[in-house]
Every structure is written in structure tokens, then in C-alpha cells.
């Protein structure tokens, strides 16, 4: 199933977010690290894409640049046609607030806010009201109905992650980024969260980009993009666990 075809072109009209010849260098001189070395990749609208690769291959860095959390050294990041790379912090902040959602591996929630307040945080910051019907549906789907008044400390890890997911989805952003969202969860909670991610892509048309190490998690995605040493190393469409495991092994062997 593995194809070595060229990646989706950056300006493809289907891409919700895309990187064009993206380079990110940390440090300078002898200690400089090229975390991203000319990556060109697009993520289609309404689809669930996983990014995989060995540790240190630049997955998190790519995601941070795509999400406007970090600035690239050169190249372009296109979010729905707008170039994020040359934008000032004000514009990036706005984009994060209104067009992008996040789920992190850990420390997703503000400890002093209740689950409900955490969910509506980005909308609050933007001064918007959530779409009540969608909000309620999301809460029910995520099984958080009885937990909204609780502080994060009073929730299990899986519940916290579902709250974070609700926060990322509730504003219906153009893209939701998730960096190892199941890294801290047991397999059952992990499966729940992954199922929810897939469903929101398929049922709600939500674009989702997820970084993961886990072939089982990647198998939930529509497509897997492989990274190695800061460069694109192939992709898998409609992946299954076996195919993903196989390509990862090939990547490791090829180094």
C-alpha cells in the first residue's frame, strides 16, 4: 500500500493547511540542528492525518510551525491560503484563537478553571459565544455531561484529554492539531479519544493533524505522513497497523 508518489502540492485547493519547502534550524554555528529540512506537505480538508517518524525526526517541530506556535527559518506555511510565515504575532495569535485547535500530550488544561470554562476558553478570549447546540452535542458525544463543574485535578487523565478535545473542537476551527494526544492514556481511553477524532473528521468534516508514535493510533487516520531526519520519507493512504509498523521498521533500518 505504500506509495512513493510526490506529496500533495502546497497550493492544492483541497489542503486546509500546508507546508512548502519548510526549514527550521535551531541554534547557530556548530551546534545548529536542522529540525526541518525542506518539508513540503499538504493536509486535506475534512480528513484525519497522522504524522509519524522516529524520535527526533521533527514531528513536533513541524506541527508547531504549522500551528503558528513557532516561526520557521524559511519556507511557507499556508493556512487556508494565507501565508502564516511572515505574519506578526498579533495575526498568529488571532489565527490560533479562531482558526486552530490544540490537544497536547500533557498539561492541556488550566488548573484553576473548571472543565466547562476550559472548554470555552478560546471562544471566551475571542469574545464569542459557543454554538449552543453543537456545544451540547459535543459534550454528550464526549461523555462529559456530568463533569463540567469539576476542576482538572478532579478528572482522570482520559477525561482531561476529552475536555481538551472538546476545547479544540467547539469553535469548529479549520484545523485541529494533536501532539501525541493518547501518549498518557491507557489503551481503552486512548481508543475512545482516537475514535472521537476520527468521527469528528468523518461526521463533522473537521480537519485533524495528529503526531503519534503508536501504529495502532495511526491506523485510525485516513493517511499517514512519514518524517525522518527533518525530511519527508513517504506516506501511507488508508493505513492499517501492519503497514504502519512495516514502514516504520524500514525507516529505522534505512538510517
Amino acid at each position: 500500500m505504500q506509495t512513493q508518489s510526490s506529496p500533495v502540492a502546497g497550493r492544492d485547493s483541497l489542503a486546509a493547511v500546508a507546508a512548502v519547502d519548510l526549514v527550521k534550524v535551531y541554534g547557530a554555528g556548530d551546534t545548529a540542528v536542522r529540525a526541518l529540512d525542506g518539508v513540503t506537505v499538504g493536509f486535506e480538508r475534512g480528513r484525519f492525518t497522522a504524522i509519524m517518524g522516529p524520535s527526533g525526526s521533527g514531528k513536533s517541530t513541524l506541527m508547531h510551525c504549522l500551528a503558528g506556535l513557532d516561526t520557521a527559518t524559511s519556507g511557507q506555511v499556508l493556512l487556508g491560503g494565507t501565508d502564516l510565515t511572515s505574519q506578526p504575532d498579533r495575526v498568529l495569535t488571532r489565527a490560533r484563537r479562531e482558526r486552530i485547535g490544540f490537544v497536547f500530550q500533557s498539561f492541556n488544561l488550566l488548573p484553576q478553571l473548571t472543565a466547562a470554562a476550559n472548554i470555552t476558553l478560546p471562544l471566551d478570549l475571542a469574545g464569542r459565544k459557543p454554538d449552543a447546540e453543537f456545544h451540547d452535542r459535543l459534550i454528550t458525544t464526549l461523555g462529559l455531561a456530568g463533569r463540567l463543574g469539576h476542576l482538572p485535578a478532579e478528572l482522570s487523565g482520559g477525561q482531561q484529554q476529552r475536555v481538551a478535545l472538546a476545547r479544540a473542537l467547539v469553535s469548529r476551527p479549520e484545523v485541529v492539531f494533536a501532539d501525541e494526544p493518547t501518549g498518557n492514556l491507557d489503551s481503552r481511553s486512548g481508543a475512545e479519544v482516537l475514535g472521537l477524532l476520527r468521527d469528528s473528521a468523518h461526521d463533522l468534516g473537521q480537519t485533524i493533524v495528529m503526531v503519534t508514535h503508536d501504529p495502532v493510533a495511526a491506523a485510525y487516520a485516513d493517511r499517514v505522513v512519514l518524517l525522518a531526519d527533518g525530511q519527508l520519507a513517504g506516506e501511507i493512504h488508508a493505513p492499517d497497523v501492519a503497514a504502519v509498523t512495516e514502514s516504520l521498521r524500514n525507516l529505522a533500518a534505512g538510517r
Partner: protein
Amino acid sequence: MSVVLRTQLVGVAKRPSRLLLTGLAVLVASFVVYATVLAQQITERSVLNGLSGTPETVDLVVQNGEITTGDLTAIGKMPGVAEAAVRTEAYARTPAGDLIVATDPGSGPLSTVEVTEGRFPTAPGEIAVTPRTVERMGLGIGATTAAQPAEGKPVPLTVVGVLTPREDIGFLAYAPLSTVVQINGFDQLDRVDVRFDGGADAGAVRERIVAQVAGEAAPEVAGGAEVRLSEAREAAAEIDQLFIVVRVFVAVAVAAAVLIAASTFRIVFAQRMRQLALLRAVGAGRGALARALAAEGALTGLVAGVTGVLAALAVGHLIPPLLSAFGVAVSRPGFPLVQAAGTVLLAVLITIVAVLAPALSAARVAPLEALRSAATTGARQGIGVLRAITGLLLAAAAAGIAALVTINLPGPQEQDYDAETMMLAVVGSGLLAYLALIALGPVLVRPVLTIAGWPLRRSGPVGRLAVGGVGGSSRRAAAVSVVVALGVTLIAGVLVGGDSIRVLSERETVAAAPTDFEVRGPNGSTLPAGVAERAAQSADLSRVATYRWIGGAQVGTFTEAAVTDVSAKAVPRLAELDTSAGALTDVAPGRAAIAGYVAEMDGLTLGDPVTVRSNGKEVRVTIAAVLGGEAPLHSQILLDPADLTALGVAAAPTGLLADAAQSGEDGRTKGLRALRTVAAAQPDLGVNVLADQRDQITEALGVLMVIALALIGLTVLIAIVGVGSTTALSVVERVRESGLLRAVGMSRGALHGMLTTESALYGVIGAVLGLLLGVPYAWLAVSAIGLEAPLTLPGWQLAAVFGILVALTALAGVLPARRAARVSPVTALGAD
């Protein structure tokens, strides 16, 4: 070194800014302590150098005993004596007012005066006066006056010169010894200063002098240097007393530093909970952990103490040269090593005290904490049962003592009232209440925040997040706010107390000195005819009013009462007298104003009738006004003139009140001269410059307030430093939270605004708690001091204190907030 301690110390070395921040309050405290030591040294040295009244050329001083003119002449002629200068004085009554006439050699090394005009008096009856005496008493060169001795004829005096003495009291003249003796009417000298010849045998001369003055009441003969030293000591003793007060406030400041250090350590340890839990999980014992944390505290104290002492030394040695550039000569302080070591030791000790409780509670961390996500630590709510009980017990004790004080508050004019014990009880109760506040703080933060944060919460998401951030970590909020509260409590106390005392003294000055001048004769006598008319015609006087005043009357059951009929319309300042009911202008025939304590004694209120008796006659009047304190002119009741006449009092006035026509010292001098002229024919008429008394009271009060506020400023400074460092720390420690907020789309400005608002909220909570504590206690203290001072609320001043403190705490948060807002979200999220 244990591995645990090493881990902690490596952590400290990695983040020196953290060490600095936790130690900042202690640093400032040690700076203040050591600076006080140095300030005292500077002051004492400067005083010893300059403030002794004895010239350095004096070799021997003969004083405190019987010395006659004969002794003086004999000493002056002794071999070995170059000069003997007599210092004695007479108190002279002159038509121009009272005058002190003193002696001085006039020139030469033993003189303490400098002639600026004319010459020094040499012939009997000649005097030289000081510049202020020229102004005040109208005694220019060539003027003549006469001094009335206790017995015998007046001594005529002629002014031949003007001179400046060490201290110009305003009624001071110098004359030859014979004139002074003549005014005194007896041959008794206060003191003789002796200067030796170059080659004299000091011991022999001294023996000869001792022999000369020997007798029943032989005076002391002491060396000049010795006398100078003891005079300086006396001056320095006042400074010592001042520094005792300063030290009390420094102690309060140090206590504040302990509180702050404790709260900073608590924050640092709470944020390090995961790391500590990890150490516990891999097998570190509780004791080892607590010891390591305490050692870290001690290290912090050592660094902070040494830095504080060095900073104080630098400032202390920099100030004298700086001042001398402005023409003010002060001595440099020394290098008091013992005190320096003591200050550093103190810094280490208070830091250990501060770190103990946080270290013990941090060491109790469950190893499980390490496995929890960071989101679950650091935001513990509420307080434990033990702490709650302790806090409630403290609050109950404070309330109990306060209730006892309230029950035992003095009644009107109460005798044998023990104000000191009561004040101690008030202070004790206040201290307990403050300790209760510390214990119960986290619980109290919420309600205050609910009210104070209401407008913020409506203002938008940033305000809401700030309120949530403060309320979500009520322990941290309480720790910071309690320190602010201490400062606000003290300031509010001083302001409220000061305002009460101001109203009290204003009441007393208005009651006693409603105008600039007063003229009256000996008790009971009336003013000679024409005095009032002539005064009213003078261009230098205005608002001339006459009044009648009688003593020995009875008002209700109050005996030995004084009654007056001074008109509130003629003397406008009387309107400033505070009344508890009615107004002074309501006084009319049949209607009177009564002193508050007289009304209270008889249970009288507005509209009640009261009987005034004098010399067998009586009038019944209705109470039209109840005063806060006395009635005007130290009387108990103010009647309409018609009622006073009905009591059988003659129509002639007993006194006269007048204001100077022009303001300022100049106008006052002119008015005084005009009144002296008017009253000149009657030597027994006294002219009092009430305005001078008023000024003195106001000035003394102002100085007291400034000193008190400056001292309290120390505590407030430390409180602000505390808020600054706690805010900085909590921002540094919460960098991940900031990162998350930035990641989900909070702008840099909004994050900055939120963090600044949070620290301003600490100020609001602290200021509210401080006012709630400070104002009632100040009222209690004012009531307990037994001066019958009114309870006032200086609203604007308190509002200003509130505003300034909130602004300062907000300012303390600005820098750290800016730093936090600049950090990129990725870095922040990656931070541990």
C-alpha cells in the same frame, strides 16, 4: 552532602533568579536593619561633633552650686587663669513682654554670641537683643524699656546692639552681670566657664578654684571636655529614644519580611512538588527532604543577608559625601562589624524560621504526586482543619480582648483611668487578629474576591481569567495579600488615629484659641473701659469681639463650671467646633450650647432643659447644641448674653478676642504691637498670642505624623517588595500556564494584562483586609487612649492609600508579566 541536598543546590545554581526572588524580602529587611544601625551612628557622631553648648576653649566649668560675684572675681584673678566667663540669667517682666536677660563675655574665645549690629553692652542698664526679639518685642537699637524685679524699683534698659546667639528663642537679651544681678535681686550665679593660661598647671588651678568655692552648697568643678561630652550625650539621648521607636518599627518590618519569605518559599516548593515527589518516589526520606529544603533556605538567607549589609554599607558611606556636596555636614558611619555579623545572622535565622513551615509541609508530599500531571498540583484549595481551628481560636481571643476593652472604655472625665494597660490590650488584640488573618487568609480571599472581582469579571475574558487565577490558588493569594494587609493596617491605623487626634487638637485649639489674640485681666476682673473700642479702631486688628466669662457656676449637676457668652457670629472660627447635635449658631436667648461630657453626665440631649446657677441666681435654658468636647474658652456652657445677664453678671466684658488683620508672621507681629499699645496703660492685662500656640500644636502633630508614616513606610516597602517577588515567582513558576493560554490564542497584551491584573488583585484583597482590620482597631485605640477624641474616618486619605497600594502592587507585577508575555508558547509549554 546528601544527594537530596545536592539536587536542591544544583537546582538553585541553575536558577539564581529564583534564589534572589525568594531572598529579596530578607535582603531588604537586612538592608533596613543595618541601615538603621548606620543611621544611628551617623546621627550620634554628627551630634557629638556639633551640638554641645560649651565652647571647645573652656578648660573648667564651675556649676550646680552656690557661686557669687566675689567667687567670680577671685577666680578671674587666680594665677594660671586666662579668663573666667559667667553664664547666668534673669527672668525680666517688661511692658513689652517677658524677657530673658543673660550674660556672655561678648567677645573672645569663651563667647557664644556674635554681634551683628551696634555693640555689646558694657555699662549698667545696657542690653543687646537677638533679631527675633527685635521683631517680636519691638526692641530695636536705641529703644528703651524697664524690667520689673520681684522687689524694688524697675530697672531701666537701653538696647545698644543686636547679636545672634546659638538659639534665638525670641525673647532674649544680653546684659552686663551687674544688670542681671540687679534684676534677679540676689547675688547667685549659675555657672562660670574658665580658660587656663598657656603654661598653667591644670591640677593646681583646679584645686585653688575648689578651695575658693568650698562651702555648704559647693558647686561642681568639672573639665570642659567632660561637660561637653555629657551635654552631647544628653542631646544624643533624645536621639536614642527616637531610635528605640525606630527599632520597634524595624522589628515590624522584619516580621513582615519573615511572612513574605515564608510565602515565597511556599510558592517555590509548591511548584516544585513534582520534583520533590519524584525524589520521594525514588526513596528520599521525609526528614532528608525537609533538611535539604531548610538548608536551601539558610543559604538564601546568608546570600540575602550579606548582600543587604553590603548595600547598606555602600549607601551609608555614600550619603555623607553626597550631603556635604549640598553643604550639609554629617559624619561618616564606621564599619560596625559585630552588628554586621548580627544582621547576617538575623537574616539566616529569619529565613530558617520562614522556610520551616513550607519545608515541612512540602516534605510531606505523597510520592504519588510525581505521577500526576502538573495540572493537578499547585492549586490546592482551602486550609486544613488544624489551621482552621487555630485561626478561629486566635480570632476568638482577639474578639474577646477587644470586647473587654470596649466594656472598660473610660466614661466622661473618668479619673484613675489606666490608659497604658488598655492600649497594650488593644495592641495585643490587634496582633492576635492579624495572626488569625494569616491562618484564615485562604478562606477569606474568596468572599473578598467575589465582591471586589465582580466588575472585573464583567469586563471580559482577561478580567475573568485574572479573578479565576487568583481565586483558583487562594493560598498563594492569601500569602501575598496578608503582607499587603499588614502595611495597610498600619497605615490606616496611623491615618485614622492621626485624624482623630487632629480633630481633637483642632477642637481644643478652637475652644481655647478661637482667634489670633486674647486680652484679659486677672481672673474675675473686667476690661477697663475703652480698650475694646480702641482695639476695634486699630487697622492691624480685625474681628474684635468681647466676651464675658465666669467661673464657679453650676450646670445641671456639674459644679465648678465655667460659663461664657462669646458670640459664635462674632468669632467665625468657633463654627469649626465639632458638635454631636445642633450648631453653635443656634444659641439664642433661652437656648444654650453645652459641653458633650456635661450633657452625657446628666443624660441630656438636644431640646432638654438645663439649669445654670451662679451666686444664688439661676436660669433655665434649652439645649440647642451638644459639643464634642468643651464649650468655647474652656467653659462648660455657652449662653446667650441675655441669659448671662439674667444670672446677675455685670455687663462689662472680661476679655477681648481679635485676629490679626493680615496673615503671616508680619501681620501677627503688627497685631500684637497694636494690642500691646491698646493695653499699655494696664500692666496687669495679659495679651496672649493664641495663634502661636495653634501653630505649635499643628506643627508638632504634622511632624509626628510624618515620622510615623515614614517608619510604617519601611513595612510597606517590604510589603511591596514581597508582592513584587511573589508575583515574579508565581509568573516564573506558571510559565506553562502562560504558554497554554498563548497557544489557545491569548494575545501578548492580554496575557500581560491578565498577570498585571492578578497582582493588582492581590493588592485589592490585601488593602480590603487591611482596612477592615486597621480602621476598627484604630477606633478602639482612639477610644481606649482616654482623650475623648472623636472617631473619624479620613475617607479621602484612606481611599488614596487604597489606590496607591493597589497601583504599587500592580506595578510590582508589570515587569514579570512582561517577561512572561514575551516567552514563546512553545518554550513555555516545554518548560518544566
